[in-house]
């Protein structure tokens, strides 16, 4: 072999980042996907369609979707509209393992399951979602969440918060605590504030909502604050970090929420605590000290463990927010990269889109969009693209965006679970 030839081989190997020889072309790779949410279920579909043997590990039989769950809390939507199953995915031929992943041995490329069995993989896609940090706010642990719901994972918590709002006195006070970045669904707390305010305005007009925020700036801020001033004056009181909004502790017996400056008495408290990647990410060694998972922006392969790819809320995806739309888009790009890698090809640099809608009232929608590409080793905004709905848009545009929000939900849930 000539020097040039050897360099070409080495360059090829480096570019494809192959820790072991690629499978023969056309061979079916063994891919394991952990987590059946918007990211994992999407990845499993794409890989199966391409002819790969895919096992999706997901212990739950019902997936409770977070997008639109704020409408359930505000009594605008039944919880049943958030429920999705895996029958269609199973019928399409994806193998489902109804158990959870307990440990992942990245060196042996083997995942150990809670049912005692193990699966070998060529590539593993981890889409585990978030864990709520019950060590971050004094007094706020899993038991406290039964009194002061976070409702940041849809399901029983969503219904609990809805019930507490419905049972609240006519002149009650709701306190909503919002964490610092990063966390799942950046505009979500402000949509929740809006829709709770709408609920109070229409059902309990003597009640109040206090929003305590651990930061000063947030997603779609101008649009939210414009809507709050127009729709909810005297109902919604927003306290940013600079005004002492960072919650430091809660007391579920006294029903108080405290900052360093003031203690707020609540009839209903919703505490959205800081978050991190779900525990399996740490168990697999793919989470760093921040609690989230650094990834390669082309392949979504972990920066820490070869052969494990991370998508969705658990990943550090640079400028991309932690959203269902982003998880779905990342899963498609990641699955295609995995298909390329299994065939010994080098994945091309991708572009990804995110669009997130929020409702500030029924029939009043706003959006933020972004286009992303790998730059300097991270997913960065494509300059000149994206941004929010215009601040001066007419009512007809707000109505249209509310319709598009609903339509997006129907489309993406049908694509992922239908």
């Amino acid at each position, binding site marked *: 072999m000539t020097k040039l030839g050897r360099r070409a*081989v080495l360059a090829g190997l480096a570019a494809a980042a192959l820790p072991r020889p690629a499978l023969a072309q056309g061979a079916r790779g063994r891919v394991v996907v952990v987590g059946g949410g918007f990211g994992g279920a999407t990845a499993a579909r794409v890989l199966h369609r391409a002819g790969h043997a895919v096992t999706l590990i997901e212990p739950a039989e019902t997936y409770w979707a977070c997008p639109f769950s704020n409408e359930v809390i505000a009594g605008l939507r039944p919880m049943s509209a958030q429920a999705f199953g895996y029958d269609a995915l199973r019928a399409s031929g994806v193998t489902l393992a109804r158990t959870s992943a307990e440990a992942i041995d990245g060196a042996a490329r083997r995942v150990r399951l809670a049912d005692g069995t193990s699966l070998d993989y060529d590539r593993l896609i981890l889409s585990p979602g978030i864990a709520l940090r019950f060590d971050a706010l004094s007094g706020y642990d899993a038991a406290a969440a039964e009194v002061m719901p976070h409702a940041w994972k849809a399901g029983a918590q969503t219904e609990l918060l809805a019930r507490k709002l419905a049972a609240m006195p006519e002149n009650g006070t709701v306190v909503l605590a919002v964490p610092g970045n990063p966390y799942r669904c950046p505009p979500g707390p402000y949509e929740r504030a809006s829709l709770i305010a709408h609920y109070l305005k229409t059902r309990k007009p003597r009640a109040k909502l206090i929003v305590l925020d651990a930061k000063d700036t947030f997603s779609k801020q101008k649009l939210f604050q414009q809507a709050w001033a127009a729709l909810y004056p005297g109902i919604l009181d927003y306290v940013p970090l600079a005004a002492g909004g960072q919650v430091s502790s809660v007391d579920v017996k006294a029903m108080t929420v405290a900052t360093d400056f003031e203690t707020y008495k609540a009839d209903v408290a919703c505490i959205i605590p800081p978050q991190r990647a779900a525990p399996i990410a740490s168990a697999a060694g793919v989470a760093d000290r921040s609690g989230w998972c650094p990834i390669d922006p082309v392949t979504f392969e972990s920066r820490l463990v070869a052969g494990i790819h991370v998508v969705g809320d658990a990943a550090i995806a640079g400028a991309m927010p932690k959203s269902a739309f982003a998880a779905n*888009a990342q899963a498609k790009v990641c699955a295609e990269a995995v298909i390329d890698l299994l065939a010994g090809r080098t994945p091309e640099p991708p572009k990804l889109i995110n669009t997130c809608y929020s409702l500030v009232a029924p029939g009043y929608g706003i959006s933020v969009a972004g286009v992303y590409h790998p730059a300097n080793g991270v997913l960065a905004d494509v300059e000149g693209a994206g941004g929010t709905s215009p601040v001066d848009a007419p009512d007809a545009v707000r109505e249209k965006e509310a319709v598009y929000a609903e339509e997006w939900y129907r489309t993406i849930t049908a694509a992922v679970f239908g």
Partner: protein
Amino acid sequence: MRASLLLVLLATTPAAASPPGASSCSGCHGAPGGAVPSLAGHSAEDIAASLSAFRSGARPATVMNRIAKGFSDDESRAIAAWIAGGGQ
């Protein structure tokens, strides 16, 4: 030596994945009949022309104007061809 050559060949095979950005479209654009227009049944020329008109502002939009600005004419044509060819 033979294995190395095979690796070189494999590593230089063009990627089969969708063009940059294309796979994100189906996040909103689904089956016909909904409020968001379906992309099914449109020609590559139509889709590329729409993206260009969104980008220039010639065609009004709520969100597509913001998204189309993230893609060049060449990228838009590649996306359009892929979608018209049945990609999703």
